[in-house]
């Protein structure tokens, strides 16, 4: 018995060791700084004002789908924002798109997925979230178009704020560091580029950013790190143990092939089993190691941040039970289809 426990613990630590390897660190650390900048320096009001019912649909849906990247990680940001913009008259479609896309495509989730599981799945997660987010938004807007006329006056013009170019430059520099860090360049080239970019960044922070902006950036970065890293390390540790405990056959039999049932199973697991934000990634990695096929894996990754019992309850208070029911069904279908198509496409590799 003692031996078994030791083996499990070793598995957990091995998992941690694998995880804290240099390349993961290089990617995650810049991502946290980016999240801090996005959350602290981009005025959220900018996004809100484009989500109105009278805004050109192309603009409102585009803004709704990109906003996930700009609004950072906390799911506690998304729900109040969703409620607030609905109250102030945002169109149902763009609001739903925002609700769907937000938890899925934040920078930390994508980076973590890329480094722990693979960049092909991370990019697919990004693209498919946006595509299906818009589709679901459009479908719901169509279904419920009659109710929309009864909404009150639109009041989405909060104190209009602009995005100063210096902040945009700052964020672009940060993103470039992340991109170079994750790119498959020869090591020497990478180090040169990263040094140049880091130097540029420091110059920007000292000479171009306002002092309070720099402080806010660092504070926000610290908030994210403090709230996420401990959970993440625990998640990685436990998933290492889980990989040893859960029988491989169980996973392979249930989800080893890319078929409808497996994908739907992945979705169901994501909906009904709760994990805190970002922990779905180490969980997914465990499944991958145990033999889950890539399709169901993506289906799970898409579904997990979207729907939890709590978020469904809160959302139903905001838009009513009927709309929520349709939303949940649409999300389940979308994630299943996304998983199936991704699984299918990975079998026709052109590269």
């Amino acid at each position, binding site marked *: 018995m003692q031996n078994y426990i030791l083996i499990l613990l070793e598995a957990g630590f091995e998992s941690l060791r694998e995880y804290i390897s240099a390349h993961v660190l290089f990617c995650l650390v810049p991502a946290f700084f980016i999240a801090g900048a996005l959350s602290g320096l981009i005025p959220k009001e900018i996004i809100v004002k484009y989500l109105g019912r009278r805004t050109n649909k192309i603009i409102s849906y585009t803004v709704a789908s990109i906003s996930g990247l700009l609004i950072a990680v*906390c799911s506690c940001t998304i729900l*109040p924002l969703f*409620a607030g913009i609905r109250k102030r008259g945002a169109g149902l479609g763009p609001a739903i798109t925002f609700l769907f896309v937000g938890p899925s495509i934040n920078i930390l989730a994508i980076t973590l997925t890329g480094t722990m599981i693979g960049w092909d799945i991370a990019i697919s997660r990004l693209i498919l979230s946006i595509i299906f987010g818009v589709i679901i938004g459009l479908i719901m807007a169509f279904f419920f178009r009659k109710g929309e006329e009864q909404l009150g006056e639109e009041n989405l013009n909060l104190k209009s704020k602009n995005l100063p170019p210096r902040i945009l430059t700052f964020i672009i520099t940060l993103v470039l560091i992340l991109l170079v860090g994750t790119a498959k360049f020869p090591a020497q080239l990478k180090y040169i580029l990263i040094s140049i970019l880091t130097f540029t960044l420091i110059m920007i922070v000292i000479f171009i950013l306002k002092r309070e902006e720099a402080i806010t950036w660092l504070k926000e970065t610290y908030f994210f790190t403090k709230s996420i890293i401990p959970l993440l390390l625990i998640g990685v540790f436990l998933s290492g143990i889980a990989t040893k405990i859960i029988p491989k056959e169980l996973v392979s039999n249930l989800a080893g092939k890319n078929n409808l049932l497996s994908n739907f199973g992945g979705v169901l697991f994501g909906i009904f089993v709760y994990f805190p934000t970002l922990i779905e990634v180490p969980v997914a990695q465990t499944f991958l190691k145990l033999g889950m096929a890539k399709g169901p894996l993506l289906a799970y990754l898409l579904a997990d941040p979207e729907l939890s019992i709590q978020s469904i309850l809160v959302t139903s208070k905001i838009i009513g039970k009927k709309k929520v029911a349709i939303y949940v069904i649409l999300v389940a279908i979308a994630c299943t289809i996304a998983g199936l198509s991704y699984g299918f496409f990975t079998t026709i590799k052109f590269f």
Partner: protein
Amino acid sequence: MIIKVLGPGCIRCKTLKKLVKEVLEEKKIEAEIIEVKDFAEILKYPIIFTPGLVINEEIKIQGKIPSKNELIKIFEEYC
């Protein structure tokens, strides 16, 4: 003065509450602090960004953590 800190409990909300307590103690102001964590209750206020600071049922700040001085100025309105 009744102060409500609106937010589901993530680190920003906790930081806001801590800051409010600090300022109240420093300036020796009497006030009741209530944490509103339940979403249904939070959404009764016209709030878009959490965390939110509500004083005597008025939303004073939302979406960011104010500096100590900002907070002091806001409290002074009520004393």
